[in-house]
């Protein structure tokens, strides 16, 4: 996960509290999405950024997961995400992110 985004996650979490935070991912690849998810729950696994060794335990979801999709107006979701649903490997992405969330998230799982 980009180093500056990691810092923003840290700053927002200290401002609002981890229990009031959810991180929403939108990346196109399962592996990269899993790494981003792990970064905001368990700490930066590449040890490159501010979240190295810091486990915030935040709730993290990918926009293609049904928990998220069901929150949207279907017409809006179709307009914004409908095309990408046909393109992305949805099952792999959901698999990666859910696995990370189940294991490492402490809040909003």
């Amino acid at each position, binding site marked *: 996960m980009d180093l500056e985004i990691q810092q923003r996650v840290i700053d927002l979490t200290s401002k609002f509290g981890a229990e009031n935070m959810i991180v929403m991912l939108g990346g196109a690849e399962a592996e990269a999405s899993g790494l981003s998810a792990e970064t905001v729950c368990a700490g930066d696994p590449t040890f490159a950024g501010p979240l190295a060794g810091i486990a915030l335990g935040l709730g993290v979801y990918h926009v293609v997961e049904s928990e998220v999709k069901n929150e949207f107006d279907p017409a809006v979701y179709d307009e914004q995400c409908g095309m990408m649903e*046909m393109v992305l490997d949805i099952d792999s992405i959901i698999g990666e992110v859910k696995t990370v969330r189940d294991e490492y998230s402490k809040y909003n799982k």
Partner: protein
Amino acid sequence: MSFPVIKKATYILVNTPDMIIHNGTTQTLEKETNPDSEYLKEIVKHLRSFEDVVGYAPNQTYIGGMTPEELSEIKRPWNASKVENAKRFAEFGEIMPQDEFYGLIKVSDVFDLVLLEKDFTEVVRGKFTSHPVLNIKVDALKAGEELSVIESFVKSGAEGLFMDGKLVGCIKKAHEFDKNLTSHIMLENLSVKASGVLALMHLVKNSGINVNEVEYLIECSEEAVGDMNQRGGGNIAKACGEIAGIKGATGTDMRGFCAGPSHALVTASALVKSGIYKNVIVFAGGATAKLGMNGKDHIKKGLPILEDCLGGFAVLISENDGVSPVMRTDVVGRHTIGHGAAPQAVIEALVSEPLARVGMKITDVDKYAPEMQTPDITEPAGAGDVPTQNYKMIGALAVKSGQLDRKELPNFVTAHGYPGYAPTQGHIPSGVPIIGHGINHIMSGKLNNFMIIGKGSLFLGRMTNLFDGVSILIEKNSGVIEEPSGISKEEIKNMIAEEMKNFADSMLK
């Protein structure tokens, strides 16, 4: 309507192994933040030889040594095999080794900032003598310097130029205090200049055009040329044209991040179609900063450093000749400020909307050319196969608009797209790599059209979060050059005179 045509395209790669280590930002940043890192020690063991770079199938495809169709036949990953009898010179250009490139940088320098060691200079001079376009630059190399002189400049801040780890030259800062004329910036700008010059010189030769008939140059890389008072003043286009000997031209720089080349193609087409200029060249050299950008991921996965080349290209746009493929200036897509950043909105703006305006369907375009990065480079870095993702998105949009059956989507991807074969040099892979092959295939009847799609990530400059892109369709020439319609005053006068004579005759009867 007489469309402008696209006559020729050239492509060059420059293999720069030492520049990866000394000038690629992933490496220079690592040196600054973690100077004892394992990565910096490991990287020297993962550099490909020039022979391997020439034998790498995507590189051969880029310079026209093989077609994208032939590339698709080769099993992936392509870095696991070598192309038999691969040559450094091919139909569209060449793959240049690092030593010759340092010579080209020297020749491109008009402020005595570049010094090359004297024995090294003679080696390069010998190579220039047998080079098809640089043989005229043999004397411009001038005499080389003593190594001790170069070492002392490097000690006081000049950027070193290295071959296999040995110092062979340097690039000095252009000003004692100006932060925009540092040796680092001069190296980056001279590198984009030299690689741009090489692409230009190949284009002038390959197109057969009378060099004095080129009137305008648009350079579309992503570098900024200027000093502390005007950081991006620009016009490296004209600077490159000077070295390439294009005496009848002026030019300008057009910037749009990765979408730069597409913006430049549309603009060049407009200049020619309007009659302002008859021949415009769109070109760009490569970025040393991007060398080895994903090096850490490549080494982690046991791969060589695959981002070991600078890229460059040059394209000639001219008046309609009745033969060359036309630029359909009536099928131009643009991603507007109001469109929004959702992938669907972007693809609609760049693909379906411009096609719909002329009654075309998404399936009416034979080949799409979006970002054409080599997947060997991007997949190990977690970014997937970018061209394929783009073809899937375009196909998905066709499905959503009822132009394509859902189950045809996998076929659409292979039928309407080529595998990626360009280096991750930002503007370089963005649409333009297809042009050389596209022109050949249209001329041979294999393709009827192709669409170039350029997309830019503007947020990188921290001025906007907006996305950007433009696209244009290129199509077979119908062969009919329309004459200007309308009747001249002379014809009208003659018609009136004729009628008055007839009237007078009838009066006399």
